[in-house]
């Protein structure tokens, strides 16, 4: 078997799930084994890792190769050439030259607030005299390493090695550790690049646009049909240019050829072009030269700034300008080789044609929300963008450094770039770290400025962390009220989870990957092209054809990554052959192909970021997957890759899916069927996969559970007690769910569960169970039900100041009696809290002292030396509920500063108001805790842990919960684990469960006879009961309970502070005020708004109406008419602020109770 323990062994083991090697294999039931086989190599977080690996191993080399040489303007013979670049394995940053480079584990980085990064080394070559000097392994910068990537120590580690590194073998990896925090680069959803998107606007405007994306630049070109004119628009063009002029400028075509290129033989399209041709004539553009000038004049000078600013060469002519614009800026991704403009002309003509087609048939516009038109950007791609930008910045600073050196008239030494590389490379390190830490992705050259790309990995529960790794964030604005991008797209079937999306503003914009989704990395299209030329006959390059030939009937244009490349007359044959090549393993398995009949086009895609998934291949109505394949898989003699090559499974992207007829089940296969689903439950994601019987629930309930599953308290990782997180919730006795799913096993939720199987009775009890409140059994709580632990982190850092002074720890303080101060009783002689002791509010955990003198230079001779005293800044426990000191860590960070981390621990038993939820979006708080003897009990003496109110069912329609209960009960009673499967679309039939119940003397429907524990008489109805998996959610009363009688006030307004953390007051707001006014409770209002808030005594002069001071009016210079009165401080403040702005305020006073006349 495989040497690594990735937790999938059990699933592939022959004896798994009660099946023996000798048992017959049925492809129908056992084909799910392909899912673990797939997840071993791809899927879930592997895409992050694949993408990062591609960047670190290939892309980074390509980037450096593209920017390999730096030449000096001062000394043209000198250059620095980067010949190679490589990323090492992670090492400590703070090793000095004396020590050997030391390995660093991710856990060490987390604990020491360090960055898990490794050195990036470059090889350089430069001339020295006449010899070419080659220097190898020069450290350039440090690159944050993704956990479990090929550069990470965790890659391929088995359980034992993981344990040695204090790492959890089930941790998904795929994130970074920067400054001790775990950061995930979320998957970014974007509209696909280099593809034409046709859209219809208002008033008959039709546009075709394409976002060209090359390593050099990113730009968008539009072809717009507006008021019968067709124009081309681009950022560099001052105004849109008539399309015919653009095509003329591209050269080599007569008007007739242009017409044929766009319209072919179609008269109606030709008519549409009439006005455009006229326009060109009106503009006086007949020749290519004229057209180029026309374009050149309208191109912004900014476009060639780069050339203009540094090259003080001769000013270029308008025609040159136009040529440059067309060649490099407009539809930049269509390569121009040797001024061969024909492919670009074909491309622009195609855009025009698409516009015209959409004009005649409005159905031919593209759908922006179609998943096939989307690309997912992963960590590797984002990092490569950033790295390229930073590397380019680095080369410019290096060149400046070089210039400065060569500027010196008399140089003493020869120039050695090696040292300059190290010092300037720090900017790359800094840039990478800052971007990952802050989540602000700024790439100047693309004008890209994105915030919130990275997030702190949520470690609330295992599922929260895993769910974060599969999350996709969309670029759409959350505030816009459009429903299109938020809606469930039919094309996301099997690719994106239909259930897992947040509620509220990000609804439908934040998505999650389905279980079997894979995101492609880039494949070299050249290779694909060569194979196609070599293997498939009847393919001819497009450059050899004119427009009329292109558009003649029966001819299909083959596009590679959206660019026309060749033609064929046998499209079906071609695609078949292509797929054949792919299935035989000659082409990359992730290259996609599909036919677009509307546009008579075949599209081959090899680009990165396409969403695809594996499907079983069906031939002649029979899946090619046979029992022997599964047998080999069980024996460990075949892996998923082998099946790819044997034509059993293949990866199909969203566009290719449109050409396929996919059967859901084996029985659905006909002769037209091309593919079959591996397992239907894989349309759900990892988080939705926890729900048993999700196909019986109302769909929003599944969505609610997806949000709540992430808040459930459970086991986080095997190394949870070694971690020191800001806040960590763990369950004392987590249990594997009684009713599981295949997904639960695949994602190992059964090993790191978050919940307990509670015996639930559905009945109304005590009246404290209205509005979804739960009734809990006190004895169950006594015995450990729902018990959880809360760990909190408190840190102190020991700083060093520039003047040489240092923070320090000190011994516990003594009071007058010579005893230790009560606050310091936890502290040992080292000034640190002792693990195991109980801390109460106000107790000191770290007794730190900081020097009073931090500013002076500390040079005594210069007289600049401050006092030697120290000020105590204790780190004390601030929470009202006591806790225990769990552990104390003393270490140093990368800047060689000592850091102290203290972790406190609370063990909490469920109390009134704590939140619980089942796995069906049914949350509730504890309404009452009942003694065991008051609980209803069955004939066997069984009494429930939880009583749930039946009103929770009718409106929620969570039938899955009923099924879970019944299935759980049956599997408990029958002692059969295999009963307990609630997989989506393939769960155990519930009738069988009922039969099992009857066999063991229970009711068929799961409703049993119960006796009231209070009266001792039977209940008049049978009660539905059984085990239901309940999750304890992180919202606990203890963290929210708050009240105030008196307390702190804000400095400025003297009003009570706000919020629990500042022990603030509860605001009597505007609407509450309205109520009191309407009711007429004026004295209560006065009390709430003034006396209990910010009442203050002021002196007011009755004569001038201004504020006085100490019974004296300074305006009137008299104490005569000054009166004291009470008013809100905020009002007094307003008066004074207005005065400060030169707005006079006068207060006129009246008798409160005027004497009656």
């Amino acid at each position: 078997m495989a040497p690594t323990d990735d937790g999938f062994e059990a699933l592939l083991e022959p004896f798994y799930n009660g099946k023996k090697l000798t048992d017959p294999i049925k492809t129908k039931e056992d084909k799910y084994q392909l899912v673990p086989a797939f997840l071993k190599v791809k899927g879930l977080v592997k895409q992050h890792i694949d993408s990062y690996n591609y960047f670190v191993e290939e892309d980074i080399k390509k980037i450096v190769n593209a920017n390999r040489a730096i030449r000096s303007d001062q000394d043209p013979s000198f250059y620095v050439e980067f010949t190679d670049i490589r990323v090492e394995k992670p090492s400590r940053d703070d090793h000095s030259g004396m020590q050997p480079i030391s390995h660093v584990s991710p856990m060490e980085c987390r604990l020491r607030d360090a960055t898990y990064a490794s050195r990036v080394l470059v090889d350089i070559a430069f001339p020295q005299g006449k010899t070419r000097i080659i220097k190898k392994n020069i450290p350039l910068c440090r690159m944050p390493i993704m956990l479990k990537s090929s550069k990470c120590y965790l890659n391929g580690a088995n359980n034992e090695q993981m344990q040695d590194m204090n790492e959890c073998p089930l941790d998904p990896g795929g994130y970074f550790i920067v400054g001790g925090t775990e950061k995930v680069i979320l998957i970014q959803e974007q509209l696909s690049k280099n593809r034409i998107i046709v859209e219809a606007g208002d008033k008959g405007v039709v546009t075709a646009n394409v976002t060209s994306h090359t390593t050099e630049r990113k730009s968008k070109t539009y072809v717009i049909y507006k008021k019968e004119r067709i124009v081309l628009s681009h950022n560099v063009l001052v105004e849109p240019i008539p399309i015919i002029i653009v095509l003329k400028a591209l050269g080599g075509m007569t008007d007739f050829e242009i017409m044929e290129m766009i319209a072919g033989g179609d008269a109606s399209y030709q008519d549409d072009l009439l006005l455009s041709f006229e326009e060109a004539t009106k503009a006086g553009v007949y020749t290519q030269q004229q057209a180029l000038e026309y374009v050149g004049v309208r191109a912004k000078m900014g476009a060639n700034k780069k050339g203009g600013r540094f090259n003080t060469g001769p000013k270029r002519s308008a025609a040159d300008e136009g040529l440059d614009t067309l060649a490099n800026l407009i539809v930049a991704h269509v390569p121009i080789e040797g001024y061969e403009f024909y492919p670009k002309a074909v491309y622009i003509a195609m855009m025009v044609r698409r516009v015209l087609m959409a004009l005649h048939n409005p159905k031919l516009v593209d759908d922006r929300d179609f998943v096939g038109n989307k690309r997912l950007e992963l960590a590797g791609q984002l990092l490569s963008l950033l790295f390229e930008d930073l590397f380019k910045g680095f080369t410019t600073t290096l060149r400046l450094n070089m210039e400065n050196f060569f500027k010196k008239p008399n140089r003493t030494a020869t120039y050695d770039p090696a040292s300059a590389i190290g010092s300037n490379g720090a900017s790359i390190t800094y840039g990478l770290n800052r971007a990952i830490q802050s989540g602000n992705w700024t790439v100047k050259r693309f004008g890209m400025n994105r915030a919130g790309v990275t997030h702190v990995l949520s470690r609330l529960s295992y599922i929260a962390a895993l769910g974060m790794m599969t999350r996709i964030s969309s670029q759409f604005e959350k505030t816009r009220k459009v429903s299109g991008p938020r809606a469930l797209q039919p094309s996301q079937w099997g690719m994106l989870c239909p259930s897992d999306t947040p509620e509220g503003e990000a609804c439908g914009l934040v998505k999650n990957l389905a279980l079997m989704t894979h995101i492609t990395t880039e494949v070299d299209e050249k290779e694909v092209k060569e194979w196609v030329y070599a293997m498939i006959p009847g393919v001819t390059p497009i450059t050899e054809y004119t427009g009329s030939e292109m558009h003649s009937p029966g001819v299909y244009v083959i596009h590679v990554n959206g660019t026309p490349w060749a033609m064929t007359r046998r499209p079906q044959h071609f695609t078949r052959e292509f797929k054949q090549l792919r299935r035989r393993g000659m082409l990359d398995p992730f290259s996609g192909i599909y036919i677009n009949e509307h546009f008579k086009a075949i599209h081959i895609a090899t680009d990165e970021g396409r969403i695809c998934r594996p499907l079983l291949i069906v031939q002649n109505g029979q899946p090619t997957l046979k029992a022997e394949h599964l047998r080999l898989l069980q024996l460990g003699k075949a892996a998923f890759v082998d099946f790819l090559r044997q034509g059993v499974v293949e990866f199909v992207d969203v566009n290719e899916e449109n050409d396929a007829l996919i059967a859901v089940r084996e029985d659905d296969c006909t002769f037209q069927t091309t593919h079959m689903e591996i397992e239907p439950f894989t349309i759900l994601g990892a988080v939705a996969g926890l729900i048993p019987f999700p196909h019986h629930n109302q769909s929003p309930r599944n969505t609610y559970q997806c949000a709540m599953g992430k808040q459930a308290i459970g086991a986080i990782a095997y190394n949870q007690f070694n971690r020191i997180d800001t806040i960590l919730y763990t369950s004392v006795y987590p249990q594997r769910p009684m009713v599981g799913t295949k997904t639960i096993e695949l994602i190992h939720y059964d090993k790191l569960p978050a919940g307990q199987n509670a015996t639930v009775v559905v009945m109304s009890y005590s009246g404290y169970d209205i509005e979804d409140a739960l009734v809990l059994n006190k004895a169950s709580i006594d015995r450990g039900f729902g018990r959880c632990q809360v760990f909190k982190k408190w840190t102190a850092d020991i700083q060093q100041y520039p003047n040489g002074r240092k923070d320090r720890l000190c011994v516990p303080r003594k009071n007058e009696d010579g005893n230790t101060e009560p606050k310091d009783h936890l502290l040992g002689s080292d000034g640190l809290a002792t693990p195991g002791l109980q801390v109460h509010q106000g107790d000191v955990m770290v007794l730190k002292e900081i020097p009073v003198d931090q500013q002076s230079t500390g040079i005594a001779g210069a007289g600049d030396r401050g006092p030697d005293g120290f000020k105590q800044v204790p780190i004390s426990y601030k929470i009202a509920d006591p806790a225990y000191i769990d552990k104390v860590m003393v270490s140093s960070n990368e800047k060689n500063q000592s850091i102290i981390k203290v972790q406190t621990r609370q063990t909490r038993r469920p109390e009134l108001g704590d939140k619980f939820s089942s796995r069906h979006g049914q949350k509730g708080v504890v309404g009452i805790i009942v003694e065991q003897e008051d609980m209803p009990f069955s004939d066997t003496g069984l009494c429930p842990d939880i009583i749930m109110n039946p009103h929770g069912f009718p409106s929620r329609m969570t039938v899955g919960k009923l099924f879970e209960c019944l299935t759980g009960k049956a599997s408990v009673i029958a002692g059969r684990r295999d009963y307990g499967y609630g997989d989506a679309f393939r769960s155990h039939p519930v009738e069988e469960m009922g039969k099992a119940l009857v066999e063991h003397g229970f009711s068929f429907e799961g409703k049993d006879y119960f006796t009231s524990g209070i009266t001792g008489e039977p209940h008049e109805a049978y009660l539905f009961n059984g085990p239901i998996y309940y999750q304890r959610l992180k919202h606990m009363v203890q963290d929210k309970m708050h009240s105030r009688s008196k307390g702190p006030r804000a400095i400025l307004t003297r009003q009570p502070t706000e919020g629990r953390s500042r022990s603030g007051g509860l605001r009597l707001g505007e609407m509450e005020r309205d109520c009191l006014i309407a009711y007429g409770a004026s004295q209560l209002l006065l009390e709430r708004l003034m006396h209990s808030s910010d009442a203050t005594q002021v002196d007011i002069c009755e004569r001038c109406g201004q504020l006085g001071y100490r019974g004296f009016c300074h305006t009137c210079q008299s104490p005569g008419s000054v009166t004291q009165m009470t008013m809100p401080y905020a009002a007094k403040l307003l008066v004074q602020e207005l005065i400060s702005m030169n707005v006079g305020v006068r207060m006129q006073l009246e008798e409160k109770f005027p004497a009656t006349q």
Partner: protein
Amino acid sequence: MPRQPPTKEELEARKIVGINLETITNVHDTNYPGHYPGEDHSWDIEKFKQEFSVEIHKNDPYEASFSLIGLDASIANAFRRIMISDIPTLAIEQVFLNNNTSVIQDEVLCHRLGLIPFTAGKEGLRNFVEWQAKPRETGEPADCRDSDTFQLELKVRCEHNPDAGPHETDPTKLYKHAHVYARDIKFNPVGRQYEWFTGENAIRPVNPDILIAKLRPGQEIDLNMHMHKGVGSDHAKFSPVATATYRILPVIDIVEPILGRDAEKFQKCFPQGVIGLEKVTAEDGKRDSRYLGHEGELKAVVLDAMRDTVSRECLRHDEFKNKVKLGRKRDHFIYGVESTGQLESDDIFLQSVQHLKAKAKTFEKQLVNMVR
């Protein structure tokens, strides 16, 4: 028309709780004065003595089953409730941790220790153990006495096992004391405790194989414990029973004959031994005309209704519609008492009777005071 006194059948029928497909009817006892006009149902000790009976089905130390017949549900329930929450037992209440370097946290370890059921000599438990004195007014706990505090000790240190094979992977063989069990807890008697709790009467865990914690080399658990007397209403660990429950006697009444295939199916609707199959004899035919012509076929007869679990499966099938009537006898309580091990099941029940009596006495006193 003058009221007829109820017939014997009528009286019996009143005691039956109706078990229907979806509902349970007749759940309340109507056997009290004033419910039936002209009938006197006032409680009478002599009548009660006459009607009340006890049957013992099983009397194992840790699992007992018996029937109390002729009782009211409130009394029956009172016994059950008292057994769960009011019978005092000994359990670990205070833990003094000297050292705990295991992965299991102090609070969790203490909680686990508290839940371990202990047992000891019955004489001592009954006659010697006293309630712990109330804390002093200053809030300090009262002094411990030998009659209310029992010291236990757990001191385990895990070490490498030098005898383990080089390729051993089983932690229990690789290390010494890798697992800490309840049997590792040591009782340290003091004072008069030597008289009551020595030898086989020593305080010891009921089940020595309860796993408390797992250790690895170098880890150590060293703690002292105090055991006190407490009740289940305070914490479930003091409850002497795992379950104390009762059910009322099922009644199966075959109204119409169930014959042949149906009879076999009917039998399968019940747990084994509830329904028997008998051949219809000629006498049956003579006695009941409905059997006529079915001689030799199988008929369903009730063998032992007590074994029925009231799954009411037979009501689900149309074949048996109106042929069978299910019910339960309201005043026949079949108790099931499972002890956690400190006290014996029958003892627990007897104590509950004493307890109820004591409660009644206290209540009587209060009642008299109230009236006065």
